[in-house]
């Protein structure tokens, strides 16, 4: 399945995670934007209005939860997938309260990413 028209923002402070996610999303046909902290994600979102955002939680400058809140405040239809290595009850609760579209535990595998893209396509 191709996701040619999708513009995806990947926000993670790890260059490794950004690269792996970007490489796979591009293989799927998406165009990918990158942000390395929550504040940059908010700034890029406002400018580029991507279809989908993959957001880490623990990051310097601004956390993924806070960034998600600000993005949703700017665009209540924003689709932010929170991807964190620490899927604690608190994080899950925070993600839902912030208005996250989905919450997934890292490391993300390719099947998971494809599912997220497919679900997005079905919904929109």
């Amino acid at each position, binding site marked *: 399945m191709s996701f040619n028209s999708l513009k995806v923002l990947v926000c993670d402070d790890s260059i490794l995670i950004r*690269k792996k996610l970007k490489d796979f999303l591009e293989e799927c046909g998406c165009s990918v934007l990158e942000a390395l902290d929550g504040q940059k994600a908010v700034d890029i979102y406002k400018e580029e209005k991507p279809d989908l955002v993959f957001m880490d939680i623990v990051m310097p400058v601004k956390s993924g939860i806070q960034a998600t809140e600000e993005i949703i405040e700017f665009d209540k239809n924003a689709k932010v997938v929170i991807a964190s290595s*620490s899927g604690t009850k608190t994080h899950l609760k925070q993600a839902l309260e912030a208005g996250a579209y989905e919450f997934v535990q890292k490391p993300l595998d390719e099947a998971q990413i494809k599912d997220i893209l497919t679900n997005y396509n079905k919904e929109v």
Partner: protein
Amino acid sequence: MFTQLFGSFLLNKKLVTTEQLMDALNYQSSVRLKLGVLAVNAGYMTAEDIKKVHDVQSKVDKKFGEIAIEMGFLDDEKVNKLLSSQKTGYLLLGQALVDKNYMTMKQFEDAINIYKKEYSLSNDELQSIDNGDFNKVLSSFYGFDNVSQGEVYKNYFSLLFRNIIRFVDASFIPKENKAISNYKYQWMVTQNIFGNIGLDTYICGDEKAFIGFASKFSQENYNQNDEYVQASMGEFLNQINGLFLVNMSNNNVELELTPQAVYSNGVLTELSEAYCITIEFPFGVIDFMISKSN
């Protein structure tokens, strides 16, 4: 995990060298367990009995089990039980050491018995440990006696070891844990866990060890200690700590993480309740550390 710890025990007892142990750890994945090794481990036969069966086997074309039954060492029920038992981790290591002529069957049998005696373990307990009762393993091998959160440390290292085996490399030798208050590092990745309890976690090593570890974890072939290597080390620590937070959250303890950070050529001082476990990998030596946040 018990395989690695049992290997370390053999090393501490000077029954094998580091090189022999590393070679056997690498070789063991291709080893097929022999019935004799299983029978010795189960306490059904001694190394001497095995030798007698082998002597007969050199003259008669029969299976080991058939001869052992004929000689009265085993019966059908015992053979079936042995054959149906799971591939036992540390026994594969034992078999590898014997196959490679680093130990005799007798030496391996003695080592198992010394281990059982030193840690007051029955055959069944040894089996349950080998089948993955990690905390029991850690309790028998590593004590965190003077630590207010000893149980938390045990859970943390148990998780760490399981994930090293899962995501990095099963061929490693864990050394004893050391209580430390200062530590000089060449390269270090660190992350703080905070909330109801405060812990600082660290992974330290030299450049070569970092490159080797990161390459295995990321399944890439890194040649230099660049930002990808450092990000890989950070991500491994983040992954372990994330899983630790999930486990703690399942026990209703909610914790948070700081972003991980990488440093080079420095000294940690005035560490509180700090423990360091050194692990020797084929690609180098890595220190895994945990301390109470000041």
